[in-house]
């Protein structure tokens, strides 16, 4: 065992720690670089706004974009109210008892289930048992169950960051517990809740496995008319064109990946900007 002098070992460990931190930047930069380099040539107004042609080898990806947006939008509309209500219950009302512990355990476990299992669960329950068929609504329900633990956790974090003194101040004015939550706690937690929601939108936009059996179609020649329609979706479309179609032009594959990546990154950026904005306004 070589003994380094304290000074040298200090420098060495600093270098090691710094390298580990820098290492996390590398994959992000490489991924974005490769996708932009290969995909930019495919991006055009037509690519974003028209239907696919020649067995996906030409035309645009409009139905996939619309499909993804509609699944994700439905999923958020379902999961946000339920998640926020659950978070309010857990943070403001729940006593530390057996039920609360079981609920918390369920949340942790729900977050740990592999996404393909959600896909199969959605197929069994929503598509077949509830007879929703392969549809936007079945996919959205599957995604919302998957996203529920994330929404609950972030919303609970936002609620518990509202200072306890605000609650005491409100209660001591004779304001009831519910009104305190509604008029004091919730408005102050809202920015945090919304940031969490936007991040979860970004996350589920790219999910493939949960919608594989529940919502996504190989090809649909028209845009969705109702929540019970099967749709194309960007992540699934990307999977198909990269694996199932021979002689697929490379730039369309990368172009599709670029659109998906940009959608996700834009939403993350909105969340970050929103967080900075609300942090600045918040002064306690």
């Amino acid at each position, binding site marked *: 065992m070589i003994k380094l002098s304290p000074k040298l070992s200090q420098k060495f460990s600093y270098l090691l720690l710094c390298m580990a931190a820098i290492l996390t930047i590398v994959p992000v930069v490489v991924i974005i670089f490769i996708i932009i380099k290969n995909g930019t040539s495919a991006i055009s107004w037509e690519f974003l706004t028209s239907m696919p042609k020649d067995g996906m080898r030409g035309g645009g990806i409009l139905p996939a974009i619309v499909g993804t947006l509609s699944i994700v939008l439905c999923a958020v509309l379902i999961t946000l109210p339920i998640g926020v209500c659950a978070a309010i219950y857990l943070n403001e009302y729940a006593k530390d008892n057996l039920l609360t512990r079981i609920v918390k355990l369920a949340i942790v476990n729900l977050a740990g289930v592999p996404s393909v299992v959600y896909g199969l669960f959605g197929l069994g329950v929503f598509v077949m048992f509830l007879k929703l068929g392969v549809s936007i609504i079945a996919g959205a329900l599957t995604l919302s169950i998957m996203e529920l633990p994330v929404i609950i956790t972030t919303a609970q974090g936002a609620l518990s960051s509202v200072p306890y003194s605000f609650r005491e101040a409100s209660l001591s004015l004779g304001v009831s517990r519910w009104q305190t939550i509604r008029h004091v706690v919730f408005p*102050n937690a809202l920015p945090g809740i919304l940031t969490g929601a936007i991040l979860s939108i970004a996350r589920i936009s790219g999910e493939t496995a949960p919608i594989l059996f529940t919502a996504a179609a190989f090809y649909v020649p028209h845009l969705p008319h109702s929540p019970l329609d099967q749709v194309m979706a960007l992540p699934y479309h990307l999977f198909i064109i990269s694996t199932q179609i021979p002689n697929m032009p490379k730039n369309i594959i990368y172009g599709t990946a670029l659109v998906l990546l940009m959608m996700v990154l834009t939403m993350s950026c909105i969340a970050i900007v929103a967080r900075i904005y609300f942090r600045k306004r918040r002064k306690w």
Partner: protein
Amino acid sequence: MSTIGIKNFNLYYSEFHALKNINITIEEKRITSMIGPSGCGKSTLLRSINRINDTIEGVCTNGEINISNQNIYANNVDVDFLRRNVGMVFQRPNPFPISIYENVAFGLKVNRIASDRNVIAKTVEKSLRAVLLWDDIKDKLHKSALTLTLEQQQRLCIARVIAVAPRIILLDEPCSSLDPVATQRIEELMIKLKDNYTIVIVTHNMQQAARVSHDAAFMLLGELVEFDKTEKIFTNPTKKETEDYVTGRFG
């Protein structure tokens, strides 16, 4: 009538016996101070008078606290109504991060005490005048309450309480985050307010207790050691512990 009669009152934080058989009668329209070393239970006792301790998990009580001859720990008591009647001001000023005006109007609006705009505006003005804040801030009512100085924020918190028309105001070390000048001005305000409200103040500052209160209660280790006229507590206390504390031999 807003006499506070505390009878055989005990409070436990789970296993910990925090208040031991307290008996005390706090007279109305006077300032009563509670003094004692940290952890003696004075804040806990104060917080029992409007049942804000109920929000802490594991708290249980027995005995009575009677306000206007009604035991506030009885089963049929409307706790929200009780707290409207018994307002509380805390150690650190805690205005809501909304405008000054909305802070004072908050209790009126949410409790639906008033809905008419003019009535609310009048009550806000009256409350801010009562705490001598109106003249300083009447031009910036719609600015965030967090732009005020700490002393002004504490005044605002008192105004917010006054707006819902309580008869008793509890103050939990209201000056501990203020400088001496601000402290003195808040004390002057308390003396002015006692004509209309029954005031109970918890303080670490013995000079403050001596300056502002008419009656003083000395507590130690969860027990009430002595309760008497402030003058008597500070000049000629009956119990040795009280004398040791007020003369600065411990605490």
